[in-house]
């Protein structure tokens, strides 16, 4: 389980808005919780359980981080706007990653999960439906809404950065 899913869970935690360090901590929590519940997790539901637990742990951690003012992106795209780099320029990788954090942060959790799985994990929608135990139609509608939000945030960044006028 650890070998098969650790990287996936870690990436998911990172994409649910945790820093690298916190993703480490959170991944540990997820697998500790899973190891203590092995007797109730059906083997075929292992990944679903891990992912669901990861969402919950990430959400808890974000909440406590916000309480401690550790999250840099409480205002999505806000503090990213005053950069002098034009949107047409190649964006520095790290900066881009921070911006993506901000954009993802703006999404509701359910939307974000589908968005991350589809756009970043490049998982087929049927697999997402199975993983989240939701109907394919729900995956499609969440993805649609997440993309709308994504476009809104991208437009917002572009506007604030003074490009694409």
């Amino acid at each position, binding site marked *: *389980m*650890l*070998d098969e899913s*650790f*990287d996936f869970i*870690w*990436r998911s935690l*990172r*994409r649910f808005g945790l820093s*690298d360090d916190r*993703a*480490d*901590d959170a*991944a*540990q*929590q997820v*697998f*500790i*919780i899973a*190891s*203590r*519940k*092995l*007797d*109730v*997790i059906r*083997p075929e*539901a*292992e990944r679903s*359980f891990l992912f*669901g637990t990861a969402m*919950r742990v990430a959400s*808890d951690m974000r*909440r*406590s981080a916000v309480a401690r003012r550790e999250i840099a992106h409480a205002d999505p795209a806000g503090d990213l706007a005053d950069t002098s780099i034009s*949107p047409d320029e*190649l*964006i520095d*990788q*790290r900066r*881009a*990653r921070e911006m*993506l954090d901000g*954009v993802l942060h703006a999404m509701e959790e359910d939307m974000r999960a589908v968005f991350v799985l*589809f*756009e*970043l994990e*490049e998982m*087929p*929608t049927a697999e997402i439906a199975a993983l989240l*135990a939701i109907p*394919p*139609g729900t995956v*499609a509608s969440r*993805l649609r809404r997440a*993309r709308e939000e*994504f*476009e809104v945030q*991208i437009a917002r960044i*572009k506007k604030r950065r003074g490009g694409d006028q």
Partner: protein
Amino acid sequence: MTEPKRLSHGDDLGASLLASARGDQPRAGSRARTAAAIGLGAALGTAAIASAGAAKAAAGASIAPKAIGAGGAGVKVASALWLKLLAAGVVTMAVAGAVAVKVERSSHHADATLAERTRAPVNAATPTPTPVAPMNVPPESPITPPTPEAPTAIATPTLAPTASPTASPIAEPAKSSPRATQPAASSPPESPLAQELRSLDEARSALARGDGSGALTLLDRHDRAFPMGPLRTEAKMLRVEALLARGDRAAAKKLATELLARDPSGPHARRLRTIGDGAP
């Protein structure tokens, strides 16, 4: 339903941002630390710690000693899944532990070095743990095919090397380390998660003894101490079982129904549904 085109395949700002996440990956050592932490979970859930030296060393920094015997209602280590997990995790730790006696502990450098040295065995050992055994494991910690007892014997003395500041429940190494004889004051403080685990295990132990009322008292204390703990679902589940053990079926049923409504597809859903329907 046709698959929508992925945004990351475009060439605009959005695609650039999405592409930036391609490099997301855990750092070296991250997985090894988690493996060590899971080993700790195994020590908590199972019945015995084989090495007295390990238990003694653990007393300073870890929750293991109080958890001995807590296995009753705890993790059932029989499933194939569990064995699979241990193949990945515990063997890692056995190797790491063997390495650790030669490695200075606790510094980031040592941690990183260890992670590097641990990495290869993790992958190599996954299909079957036994090939690792002849390497350099202390005789006190025999590696056998993962039976329910084996993980604990292996895991406990070998947890320390992969400890990170966030994994403080992990025990100090027991043997061959001059520092292991130092008093517990030099041990890192127990992490919040370790405290939560320990608290929950006390309730679990009470329940395993059939002491539903005692378990409920401990769970009340637990809920006050860890209202937002990551194991709170497990605490609620234990409460349901404790209510049943005390014979308070109505309260158990009510709580089960509430929990089920909150998370109808969670890992405990089947059990909760059974209780909610009035079965034992």
